Structure formats: C-alpha cells, structure tokens
C-alpha cells in the first residue's frame, strides 16, 4: 500500500508540471496524505539526522534557505520545502522527492499549522523566530496563535531543542517554559529605535498583562523588553548579533558572539530582518554541530529566496522584489529602502486572494509615509490597487505622481514604456501578486518558473 500511494502521488506531481497547472509543490503530498494519512510521519522518521522545523510570521523561507546553504557546505544531504509550500501537503510533497542519501529534513512551517505538524514531524530542532499580526481573516488573532504555540511547547519532549528569538516578548516568554532551549537576539544598535511603531503587537507581558517597557525596538515589537510589574524580561541569548553594519541595499556584516568566541558573518541580503534571519540560521547550524566556516560560507554565497530580495532584469532595468504581505514585513522593507540615499521607483502590488488574506485593512497599518520623500515615481497595481491608491492619497501623496495599473500585464507594459526614466525599481508585492508578476515575467522570458528553483 505504501508503495502504491507513493507511486500515484509522484505521478500526480509530474502530470501537474507537464500540464503547467503549477509547480506541483503541494498536490502530490495532498493526494498521498488522503491515501495514507500516516505517511508524513513515516517519511519524516526515515531521516536519520532528524528534522529541523522553522516557523515565524516573517523570514521563514529565507532562514530555511540559509540553513540549507550552510548544511550543503558541510556536505550533508538534506530534503527541504524550498518552494515555500509550508503546510502538511507541501512538506509531504518535498519528502516524496527525498533522495536515498538525504539524512536531514529542513522545513519551514506555517505558523498556524505548526502545532498539528509537530507530532507528525517529531523534529529534533524547532526554531521560533517572530509572531506579528498577519492575515487576520485566515490566522485569527495573534493572541490565539501565541496560545496554540504555548500549548504546543508544553507538550514537547525534553529531547526537542527549541531555538527562540529572545527579542520577541511573547516568544521569549514561551521559550523560557521549555528546559531544552537556546535563545538568539541582537544587541542594541544604531538601527534600532526607542519608539514602538504603530503596528506593534506583543506589547503586554505574557505573564501578568502589564504594559512592557522597551529599551530599544528593532522591528515591530522585537527588541530589548522587560516588565516592571512582574520582573519578566528578555532572556539572555546564547547567540548574540553584534557590530551590525547594514550596507545599503547590498547586504550586511555582523558578528555572532556565543560563549567565548565571536564569528564574523556576511549576508548578501539587505536589511536588519536579514540579520535576524542569518542569526537564526547561525544558531540552528551551530546547535546542529555545523562548523562555523561552513556557516560563514553558506551565508555569504546565498542567493535570494524567490520574491525575497530577488533581482530580476526586465526591459533592461533591474528590479528588486521585496515580498510585503503584512504590516511588520512591509514596514521592515520600507526601513530597508531608507538605507540608501537613492530615489526609488516604487511599485506596490496588492492582491486580496486567499493566500494574501482577503482582508486588506492591513495596508493602513503600514507606515508608507516614511519613504514619501525618497519616492521618484509610484506605481500601484493589483486586485485592490484603488484601495492602495487611497492609502497614499489620504496621506497627501500627490496623485499626479501616482500611476495606477491594476493588471499585471498593464504593470509590465507601464514599466517597459517608462524604462528610460526608471532608476532604482523596487517592487513590493503581496504573495499572489508576486506569483502573478513572476509568471508574467516568465512568459516574457525574464525569469524562470519557481518550481525550477534550487
């Protein structure tokens, strides 16, 4: 039965790709789990070196990719869901493609699906990076996700190692409830702030409900936090990111201090969020016994995960794609754009499909205003382009400098027509807007299909 199920599911993936019905990144797994529900657990148990699971609102795809790159340097063969299909079906599909020599699983897991997938995957390492408000129509309130993660952590066996971002107040508290835990976090630095952004979420103490104090915030509510009422505070990290230097849109350098040694890292992806991602990846690899030199090499030779800091050339113009699908992620992308003095030709594409979240209220929680004076031209696209246009209009962005082209074909034509005058094109798409854009770019030969990644 096991062999029949495997055969049919694999065939479905091949047919799906031949028919161009998508990458086949979830369908085979979906079929497999219908035929044999225990299969995910069975396949995960076949991995001798265990399973690493990475979950977060933002950064899980990039971090999983960083870990995979470093592990590749150490010549361990692994299986991973690199295309970003991070529900049970996507992981099962990845496991179907496992090669006989693969010893390790590296999976990014959707934050809502995590509690139900842990018993299936029985990971040796679980990495919890951050939780921000995201697609409230789909995920529900942040508090309910935190509660589910709390219950999940309580039922973890001692042998499962947790690696947790100490700078996220909710996660820092949750991590402290497990004995086999290591924390990572970044030192106070010149890129932080003392003001909580508008869309800060975890600002109350998980233990006593009092308002938290922040000595410094980095991204959203991440930072150096403490509760003056009950004394709960940011746990002391095992892995500390320090000496951070963000090199405009090119990447960053920083050091990780752990116990007695300090390792310098270079990451070719821009922004403080990628320092967090790299620090998480370092912590995972280090805790898994990967040599520092291999981690250094794996991180410095990294290419972007698709749609995340990815550079695509179209009509002779380089365009940077920065996926922006929730307030914390979008704000962090805007902060990153402020690292350069250059004026930016900004393109934002807002869709409202299931994978984006059908509720687009969140655009009002994004602090777009911070980059108004850096915008050379603004182009607005997507299913809900006019809602986005209103977001800018009511913040006094001049409509004369706003081009509204809802369709992806229209967007590419507009970019082509104005390519002479474009300088630094940065595109902030939601998830399906990014898929649409890539698929359209693929049609005109500017990029390749996402299932051909790796």
């Amino acid at each position, binding site marked *: 039965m096991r062999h029949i199920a495997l055969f049919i599911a694999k065939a479905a993936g091949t047919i799906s790709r031949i028919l161009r019905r998508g990458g086949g990144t979830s369908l085979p797994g979906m079929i497999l789990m219908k035929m044999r529900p225990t299969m995910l657990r069975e396949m995960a148990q076949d991995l001798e070196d265990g399973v690493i699971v990475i979950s977060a609102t933002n950064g899980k795809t990039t971090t999983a990719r960083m870990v995979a790159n470093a592990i590749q340097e150490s010549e361990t063969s692994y299986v991973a869901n690199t295309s970003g299909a991070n529900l049970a079906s996507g992981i099962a599909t990845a496991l179907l493609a496992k090669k006989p020599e693969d010893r390790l699983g590296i999976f990014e897991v959707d934050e809502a699906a995590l509690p139900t997938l842990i018993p299936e995957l029985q990971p040796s390492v679980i990495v919890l990076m951050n939780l921000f408000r995201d697609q409230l129509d789909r995920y529900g309130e942040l508090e309910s996700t935190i509660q589910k993660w709390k219950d999940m952590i309580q039922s973890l066996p001692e042998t499962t190692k947790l690696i947790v971002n100490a700078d996220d107040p909710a996660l820092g508290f949750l991590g402290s409830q497990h004995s086999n835990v290591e924390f990572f976090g970044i030192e106070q630095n010149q890129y932080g702030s003392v003001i909580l952004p508008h869309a800060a979420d975890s600002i109350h103490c998980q233990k006593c409900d009092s308002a938290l104090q922040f000595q410094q915030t980095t991204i959203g509510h991440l930072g150096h936090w403490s509760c003056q009422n009950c004394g709960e505070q940011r746990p002391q990290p095992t892995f500390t990111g320090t000496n951070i230097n963000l090199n405009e849109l090119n990447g960053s350098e920083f050091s990780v201090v752990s116990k007695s040694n300090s390792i310098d890292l270079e990451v070719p992806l821009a922004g403080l969020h990628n320092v967090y991602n790299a620090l998480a990846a370092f912590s995972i690899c280090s805790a898994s016994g990967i040599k520092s030199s291999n981690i250094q090499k794996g991180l410095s030779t990294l290419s972007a995960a698709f749609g995340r800091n990815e550079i695509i050339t179209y009509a002779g113009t380089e365009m940077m794609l920065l996926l922006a699908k929730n307030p914390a992620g979008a704000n962090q992308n805007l902060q990153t754009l402020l690292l350069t003095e250059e004026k930016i030709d900004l393109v934002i594409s807002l869709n409202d499909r299931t994978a984006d979240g059908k*509720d687009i209220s969140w655009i009002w929680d994004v602090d777009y205003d911070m980059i108004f004076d850096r915008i050379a031209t603004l182009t607005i696209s997507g299913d809900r382009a006019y809602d986005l246009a209103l977001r800018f209009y009511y913040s006094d962005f001049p409509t004369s400098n706003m081009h509204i082209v809802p369709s992806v074909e229209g967007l590419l034509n507009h970019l082509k027509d104005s390519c002479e005058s474009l300088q630094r094109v940065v595109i902030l798409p939601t998830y399906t807007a990014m898929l649409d854009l890539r698929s359209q770019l693929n049609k005109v030969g500017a990029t390749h299909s996402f299932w051909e990644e790796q």
Partner: protein
Amino acid sequence: MTEIRICHLYPKEMNIYGDRGNIAVLQKRLERRGYSSSVTPIGAGEDFNPSIFDLCYLGGGQDRDQIIVAHDLQKKSAALRSGAEDGMVFLWVCGGIQLAGEGYTDSDGRRIPGVGILDLDTSAGNRRLIGDLVLNAELDGETSTLVGYENHAGRTFLGPDATPLGSVLKGYGNNGADQTEGAVQERVIGTYMHGPILPKNPWLADKLLTWAIEHNTGGIPALSPLDDSLENLAQQVAISRAGVKR
C-alpha cells in the same frame, strides 16, 4: 476657522485592522473643505470629558484587549452617555459596536457590560463570521451602498430604540440571521464593517462630518463636493470582489 474635535478612544488597544485610516479620512475631508480638526487619543485610565468633543471613534481589538477596554469603559460610560444625549457623533466599529450596546455574553457565559449608547445586545456564537460585507444603508432618509470587511464571533440583536445601519446584500452583518447590519441611534453609529471603512465609503464619512459640524456650530453645513473618483473606483472594485452584481 471651525475646529472639529475628534476623540480617538483606545488607539493603542483597539487598532488591529488599520483603524487609523478612518481618522485620516475624517481629517482630510475636513481639511479639504476648510475646516480644521484635532484628534485626542484617550486610553485606559484617562478621563473622557464629553463637553470637548464633536466625534468619538472606537475601533477593533483582540479579545484580550477588548476585555481590558470593556472594564475601563465602565468608568467612562456615564460621560459617554451624556455625550451621546448631547448629540455627539459616534462611530464605533467591530468590537466597538459590541461595547456600545447593553453588554456581551462570552462563550463561557460570562457577562461583560457595555456602555449602553446603542439599544442592542451581543452574545458569542460558535464560529466567527468572516468575509466581505456589502449593505444598503440608510441615514437621514438617504440611501447608499456601503462595503467593508467583517470578522467577529459576536451575534448582535437590536432592541426597539436602535435601527439597523443597513440591510445586508452580502455577508453576515449583525448576526447572520436577520439580514441587518450595524445600528443607529440618534448620532451613534455602530457597525461590523471593521478597520478602514471610511476611505471607500465617502458618503458615510461625509454624513458623520455633517453631524459633527452641526454638533460644533449648531447649524447644518452644506459640505462642498470633493473629487471622489478614486474612492468610488475602490468601492466598485470591493463590491465586485465581494461577488455583488450591480
């Protein structure tokens, strides 16, 4: 220059759906007509003085924050009721409509009292009502289509003193059963259309502003028309994405 005084209640606790968009729209639509405006945030533990505001906004929050706010509102409810009696304009959305009513009974049967400026009562249902919400609204004898998004567990039923803001064309509205959505009583409006409802419903925004200016000056203003072409396009797209044909 007439200054319209807006109170934003609990902006820290009740803000999860981009509620500040509504404040931005109110201010800009005043500014574009030559009125000035002020926004005063009032949070937990702070006093609410009903004599210094023309319009009071309350948005949506997480359950945990809504409970904190419900308790704090007990201390402000007399002042809020006196404001409502005096003709102050209220727009309370999402969790706000529940807090404006007589009370909320949660899934464990616990009762959280409301402010009592809308004759309605709410109890928790067993599943959340989530999705696009389109309604035919009526205010001051005028009708208009409104569009928004709802996400709530509460089932709200109106008493005799409140009238629905509109009838549901798409979505669930107050309770998913009687096709009503929202509530209006004097100048108090509650609705389940959450977050930034005013950007693409300029008719509603201007209705609130007309009332707020009247509250401030005593006279009914004739608001000059604005170019609402973007607003109308956004509304049409939202209505058609919700699957309503017109």
